């Protein structure tokens, strides 16, 4: 096994880690707003966030590819002003993965907020605490299980994605060639044993992560 074998693995975990961290930062305020707002735009935003759950990844990938293309407004704008190229780059993959995995992070956190008794928040306000302090010291610590679920599902989901990655990333070694694409490639080239190694590693890692989380969550729920 040489470095070209490990490159897709490393790339996959780099992509999944970066995506998950950025998703967490975006999703907490978004989920907070969705859980507590009574704005009339809420339904629209909620629908948009959930779209990746029902859309075939190829549809999403196709539109993102069009949007990122240098021919179009967004792509042209980013290229001209920020010298950013999104299509067929790692950075583009990160953006696409964030959009694609958004519901997997937002929904558990939103559900966590909604399931907390509203009085917890109000009690904190009556004690003179600001919204921010209430969020970090009262709300988030009480929905740890939901946050953990969001992190794990987003992470594992990003590891497993294929359609979006293929559309946006192409299949460039060391840049956008993640494990799921590498498996497909090896199978096409009839290298079943290499494909099997990748597949087995992915299977084992995903299984271990999920097992770990369910064990932790069970323990956490028992202690409540």
């Amino acid at each position, binding site marked *: 096994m040489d470095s070209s074998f490990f490159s897709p693995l490393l790339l996959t975990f780099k992509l999944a880690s970066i995506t998950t961290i950025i998703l967490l930062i975006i999703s907490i305020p978004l989920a907070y707003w969705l859980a507590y707002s009574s704005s009339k735009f809420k339904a629209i935003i909620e629908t948009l966030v959930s779209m990746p759950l029902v859309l075939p990844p190829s549809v999403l990938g196709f539109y993102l590819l069009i949007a990122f293309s240098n021919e179009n407004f967004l792509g042209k704008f980013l290229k001209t002003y920020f010298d950013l190229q999104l299509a067929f780059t790692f950075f583009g993959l990160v953006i696409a993965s964030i959009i694609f995995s958004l519901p997997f992070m937002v929904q558990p956190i939103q559900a966590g907020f909604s399931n907390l008794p509203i009085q917890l928040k109000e009690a904190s306000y009556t004690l003179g605490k600001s919204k921010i302090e209430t969020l970090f010291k*009262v709300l988030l610590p009480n929905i740890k299980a939901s946050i953990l679920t969001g992190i794990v599902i987003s992470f594992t989901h990003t590891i497993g994605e294929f359609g979006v990655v293929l559309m946006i990333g192409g299949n460039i070694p060391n840049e956008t060639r993640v494990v799921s694409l590498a498996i497909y490639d090896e199978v096409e080239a009839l290298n079943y044993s290499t494909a099997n190694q990748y597949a087995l590693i992915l299977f084992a890692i995903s299984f271990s992560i999920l097992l770990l989380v369910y064990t932790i969550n069970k323990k956490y729920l028992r202690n409540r």
Partner: protein
Amino acid sequence: MLQINVIKKLMSNEGDIKLHAEFEINKHDFVTISGKSGAGKTTILRMIAGLTNPDEGIIKFENNFWFSKEKKINLPCQERNIGFVFQDYSLFPNMNVKENLIFALKNKKELDFIDYLIEITNIKGLEKRNVNTLSGGQKQKVALARTLVRKPEILLLDEPLSALDSEMRTQLQNEILKIHKEFKLTTIFVSHDLAEIFKLSDKSFILEDGKIILSGKPMDIFTSKRLSGKLKFIGEILHIQKENIVYIVTILVGNDIVKIVEADNNSNLKEGDKVIISTKAFSPILIKI
């Protein structure tokens, strides 16, 4: 003085009602609000606390407006100097008892005050306990102590004792009264329990269909029409049994069960009805216990 004159439309399962609360509360008074559920008692407390916005009107404490539709003033909950004890206690499950109190501190150095509060509310020994392992009464004491950390001027209590057994209730009533005096609070207390209202309040309001229909000293408003040399108790019918030509009605009065013989069932009494038991007070026997 706390001055309130607010209007708020409420949705209830019996259709919408218009809550119009207009009253004044003197400083250091202990006031109770009673009335049927859904009458708007909790909403009044929430509007004073700033957790619910009135549709119209004013809320004024001393010389400061907390809410005024006209002047477009709506002081956020955090800046009103109130303490709110919720019906379900609302302790923070991610903190132990002492951490719950410390969380409410403005100046984290005032730990002496926390110790003093732990002392006065009788929760010593529970400091390190997980709040989920406390009994209802203990939770309520902790919730009470936590609201006092901020040294509020007005204490709002939303049926805080309704889930407790009678012994715990009495104990907590005494503590609330002690705290009310010790901290020179103005206290507003929502309650259903007549005995509690008599015991605690200087002044009482009865709310019905969104309006205050009676206000005054509990002795005056609850007994004025009724006191005429008679004994009276309010109870709930548990059971009616026909026996030969009479009916035997079993009634729950407070925590006691009494049986009363009725010649006939003229007033169509049925199980679950609230009734007044009254008798001429010619020859009751009083025994000291």
